C-alpha cells in the first residue's frame, strides 16, 4: 500500500504559542520571534511520521493538524535530525 503523504498545518486561531510542537518536530517547525510556530509547507518526509503524529497529539490547544497532501505531492527523505537542530 502507498504511504499517505501528509502536510502539517497549524490553526492560528487555536494556537497560543506554547511551542511544544517545535520541540517535538524541529525538522518541520521553528518558532517566530513571538513564539508562534512557522511550519514547513513541505510534506512530512519519510521517517518522520511518528514524530509528526506525536507533535500533533501533544499540542495542548489541538491546533496542529496533519492533512493529506494534494495528489502527486511526494515526500522527501528526512533531513538528518542533528543538522536541523543547530
Amino acid at each position, binding site marked *: 500500500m502507498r504511504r499517505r503523504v501528509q502536510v502539517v498545518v497549524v*490553526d*492560528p486561531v487555536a494556537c497560543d504559542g506554547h511551542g511544544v510542537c517545535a520541540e517535538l518536530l524541529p525538522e518541520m517547525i521553528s518558532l517566530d520571534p513571538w513564539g508562534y510556530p512557522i511550519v514547513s509547507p513541505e510534506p512530512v518526509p519519510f521517517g518522520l511520521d511518528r514524530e509528526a503524529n506525536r507533535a500533533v497529539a501533544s499540542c495542548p490547544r489541538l491546533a496542529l*493538524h496533519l492533512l493529506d497532501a494534494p495528489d502527486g505531492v511526494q515526500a522527501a527523505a528526512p533531513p538528518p535530525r542533528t543538522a536541523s537542530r543547530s
Partner: protein
Amino acid sequence: MSPLLPRLLRGLGADGASIGLPAHLDLWGPLPDTRRGGLVDDVADAGLRGHGGAWFPAATKWRAVAGAGGRPVVVANGAEGEPASAKDALLLERLPHLVLDGAVAAARALRAEHVIVFAPARRRPRLIEAIEARRRSAADGVSIELAVAPDRFVAGQETAVVSYLNGRSGLPTFARFHPVWRSGVGGAPTLLHNAETLAHVALIARFGSEWYRQAGRPDAPGTVLLTVTGVDGAPSVVETQKGALLGAVVGGIDRQRCRAVLLGGYGGTWVDPDTASRLPVTEEAARAVGATFGAGIVAMLPHDRCPLAETARIARYLDQEKADQCGPCVRGLSGMVAELDGLAFGARRAGDAARRLGQLCDLVEGRGACRHPDGAARLVRSALRIFADEVLQHQQRGPCPESRAPGWLPTGDEAPRHVRSGNGAIRPGATGALTSRSRK
C-alpha cells in the same frame, strides 16, 4: 440589448432614486428560469470572476458547491467593510433587484432554496422593501432573508460571514478543514459571492455569456465597478469595460496634483501616478506591476499629503480592525504600526525601519486564519517600494511638514462623506449614508 456602458448602472435614475421591482423588470425583462442548469456553463463561458477582492473564477466555486452534495445556500455578501469602497452600497441601495436577481438565479441553478443577503444595518430599509416586493410577486421560488452584518472590516471575510450566520462570533475561522463551499451556513455547501458578482450574474442569466463578453477584452471580458476617490477626497462609483486605461477611466491622473494612487483598498497597493495612468483595468495587468484592483478601489492621494503618514494611518486602522485571534497577525500588525508611526511621525531616527517592516511582512504573510494580515503586508511592501525616497528623507531629516496634515482616506472617526454615483448624479441625502461608517 446594447452591450455598451453602462451595464450594471443602467438602471440608475438621475435623481438618485432606488429602482423598484416593476421598473427593474421593465428595464431588464423577467429573470429567466435557470432551474434546468446551464447557467453554470454560461458563468464559466463568460469568464466571470469574483468582485469581492480575490478575482477568483466564479464558475469554479459554483462547481465545487454543486459537487459538494446536499442542498446549498446562496449568500450575497454586501458587508463592504472597506472604507474606501462604495460600489456595493450603491448596488444595494439603488439597484437592489440586480443583486437579488443574481442570487436567485444562482440559487435556482444550484437547486438552493434559500438566499441570504448579508449587509450592514444602514442598508436594511431599502433591502427589506426590495425583498418584500419580491415576496409579493412570488416569482422567485426561493426564500430571501436579510442578515445584518456587524460593522467591522473583517465581517465580510467569507468564514466570518458564515460564522456570524451560524450564530457564532462573526470572526474569521481557520477553514482548511471545512471550506464554506463544502460546509458553510448551517453546515450546507455555501455559494458566497460579493454583491457585484451577483449583479453580473443577473445579466448573464438574461443575455448569456457571449453578450457578457462583448464588453471588455477577450482575455478580460465584461465590466467592473470602481470606487474612485479623487484628490478632492470625494468618492464616486464608475463602471468601466475591463481593459480600458485607468487614466482615461478616472478622467486623468495629474502628477502635479496626485502623489500616488492606492489600488485595491486598504489591503491593496500604492502605485505611482504614471504607472496607474497607463494601467489597463484588468487584474492581470495590476498584478504584473505588483498591484491589485481588489474590490475595485482607486484612490488618489493629493500631492500635499505625506504618503508615509497616510500609510501609517491606514495600517493603524487595519491593526484596530484585526480580529485579535491569530498570534502572528496580532503581534505583526501592531509591530508594523509602531514602525510606521516612528517612520512617519517620529523624531529623527537613524534606525532601519524599512528593513524591520520587511521582516514583519515576511512574518505575517500566510499565517493568519484569514488574509487580513496579507493585505496589510501588501500595503506596507508597496509603500516601501514606491516611497523609498520619502523613507530615506524621513529617516535622515525626520517627518516632513506634510505628515502633520490631517488624514485623507477615512480611518474610522470622520464625518460621513458624499458619494457621487455612476452617472455623476449627486444626492447628498441618500448618498451621505452610503459611506458613513461608524466604528464598532
